[in-house]
């Protein structure tokens, strides 16, 4: 065995070992995946996937700053690896056709090309968010969930994010996006609770998270929808 304390051993250490891991783990996949581009629809100028709005990109920073990624993933593993499909995390409604079956699929590298920062996540204390916009279709219900998760799910272990909202005095007419809250959460009379700018961009980001399109990367038969009976 060569000692790493000799010159030859040291060169072997740097060249063969450090660079070996770096090359295999990062450089080679980068060569594979670095050039991914959206798919252009023949006959129209549509592309798949499409870029999210500017507000949604702003929301990435709030998602990062408040550490959503420590409990939520954004990746759906294939049906032969884990039960993500069975949990319904890969299910999205096909909007091109009302009668079409829902799109059920894993996520592919191409799904993430528009995201500034990618939050695949490593922990599932909370649900996967790859298709969260399919489960929460409007901003109002997401605002309410962020303000007090127990309203929708009394057993939720998600913390409340009240600091993303502002309680203010109603002057004139109440705001259109004031939260409809009852019981303990309701603001005092004459006051309303409205989302801050951070909450707005975070919700815009969350509402952009849906994989309701097919990709040519999909191979093999589409798995059957989970039986919810």
């Amino acid at each position, binding site marked *: *065995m*060569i*000692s*790493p*304390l000799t010159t030859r051993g*040291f060169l072997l*250490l*740097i060249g063969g*070992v*450090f660079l070996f*891991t*770096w090359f*295999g*783990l*990062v450089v*080679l*996949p*980068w060569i594979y*995946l*670095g050039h991914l581009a959206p798919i252009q629809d023949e006959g129209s100028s549509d592309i798949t996937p499409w870029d999210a709005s500017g507000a949604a990109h702003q929301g990435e920073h709030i998602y*990062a*700053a*408040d*550490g*959503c990624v*420590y*409990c939520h993933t954004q*990746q759906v*593993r294939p049906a032969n*690896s*884990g*039960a*993500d499909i*069975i*949990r319904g995390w890969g299910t999205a409604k096909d909007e091109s056709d009302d009668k079409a079956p829902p799109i059920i699929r894993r*996520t*592919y*590298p191409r799904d*993430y*090309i528009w995201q500034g*920062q*990618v*939050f*695949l*996540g*490593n*922990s*599932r*204390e*909370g*649900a996967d968010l790859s298709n969260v916009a399919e489960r929460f279709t409007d901003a109002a219900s997401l605002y309410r969930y962020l303000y007090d998760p127990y309203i929708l*799910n009394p*057993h*939720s*272990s998600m*913390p409340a*994010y*009240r*600091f993303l909202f502002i309680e203010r005095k109603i002057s004139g007419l109440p705001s259109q996006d004031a939260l409809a809250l009852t019981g303990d959460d309701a603001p005092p009379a004459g006051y309303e609770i409205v989302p801050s700018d951070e909450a707005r961009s975070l919700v815009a980001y969350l509402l952009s998270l849906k994989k309701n399109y097919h990709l040519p990367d999909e191979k093999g038969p589409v798995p059957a929808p989970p039986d*919810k009976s």
Partner: protein
Amino acid sequence: MATSPTIATQGYTSTDPELAAIDASVRWPVMACFLTAVHWMVVGTFFLVYASSLAHPQDTFPILGLFVSLSDNFSMFTYGRIWPAAVDTLVYGWATTGGLGLAIWILARTCRTPVRSPATLMTAIVFWNLGIATGLIGIFLGDSNSVELLEFPAYAAWTLWLSYVLFAVWAVVTWLGRRPGHDHVAQSWLLVALFSFPWLFGGGSVLLDGKPLAGSGVIQELISAWYVHGLYTLWFAPLGLALLYYLIPKMSGLPIRYGTKTQAAFWTWIIFAPWTAVHDLVGGPFPAETVTTGLVLSGLIFLPVALIGMNLVGTAFAAEEKHGHHGGIVFPFLTLSAVCFVLAGIAEQILSIRSANELLRFTMFRECNFFLWLYGFFSFGLFGAIYYIVPRLLDFSWRSSALIRAHYYFSLYGILLVIAMVGFGSVVQGETLESPDPLVTITIADQNALNFHIASTVCISLIAIGSGIFALHLGWMLLNCINIRVRANRLASEILHEPYEPEGPAGASPAPGTAAAKKEVAA
């Protein structure tokens, strides 16, 4: 409070005058590292208990209501900021700062040369700590980018990196000035650690901190996995192993068991262990070839783990048998550290099995792994080292063997229970999350995991109590040390009929003429 004679024999410096001179030359940098590290450990452990308690918000511990309402209403205290702050404080503030102290000490001793320019080191340490403080403030103010273990904002990361470069310059100079003929296996491990850290931290910070590279997509997650596991396997593991390979034979007086296997253990670890990064990639949107290759390579991690286990655990157990009473008061920390290294290796080995990985991928097994690496393996090695090194640097002994024992037992039961609880909990959580029944929801998985989260908070609190005892003990020792030094100086000046001139705090080393008087007082 009598000093226990078993902690260290009278005259606490090394009996080898050459080593004693080396210890004296690194006294202030190493002490600065250890003291700031212990400070960050206290802060980080508090954050960790706080964050862990937020995982079961509907529980009714007395103080929990306050924690939860703080986290609901102030962005600073939300789980997504407290948890990374806790992990980063422990990883960079406690383990890495303490690890730098260790590296300085082991490097100077194995190179057999008194260090040059400790002022360079002190500058590096000051800026290093400033970097950590800045980074924490950044996380709390919402500047974090949520990349695991790289949460510190770019400005803090660069402060840390530049401080490390300063340290590295010193390390290279010391290395070049080493006395030949004293090669030690600890040096190989130290070499890997000291080269890996800037490579990993620089690469990770450049590519992931600040603005993400446009269109890099999932590559970011590959780099992140490379970084996180690189930090465990190429920074903490080599640093801790350097310590164990150096101290276990030294303290026990026994040669390393199966000593001919140390080189094989070294190279197999360096080649296979960093591939544990793919444990974070299984099933994800990544090239299948990368994942499969990585699982095969990281699956071979049992080779180095077995060899290192034979070396270190074998020697440690032999030493405990030879010396009785677990080999002393400080030695069991090193045994525990070596055993936890093997456990951490086994945990990594389990994750290399594809089906086990699919089950445990998104569960609290990740925390289990973190506790094993950072607390079980690295921290307990570092505790043992601090217990061993500080008396040799200050020529002053620990105050109470009972406190060291208490620290050991709190740590031992804390870490074993937390690993058992989180390990078992992750299987329960995984079985629910990966259940083939479509009616099972995330809420049910959370409910099943809840009790294990509560148990984990309790066990972390046990470790926290142990760490608190340690920190208080260290503080007590320092106060006593300063106090006695000051009194000794005063006495000496009275004997010599000279007007007393107090020396600076922290007992700048006493004048040569006072040595005899000091011995009298200390005795």
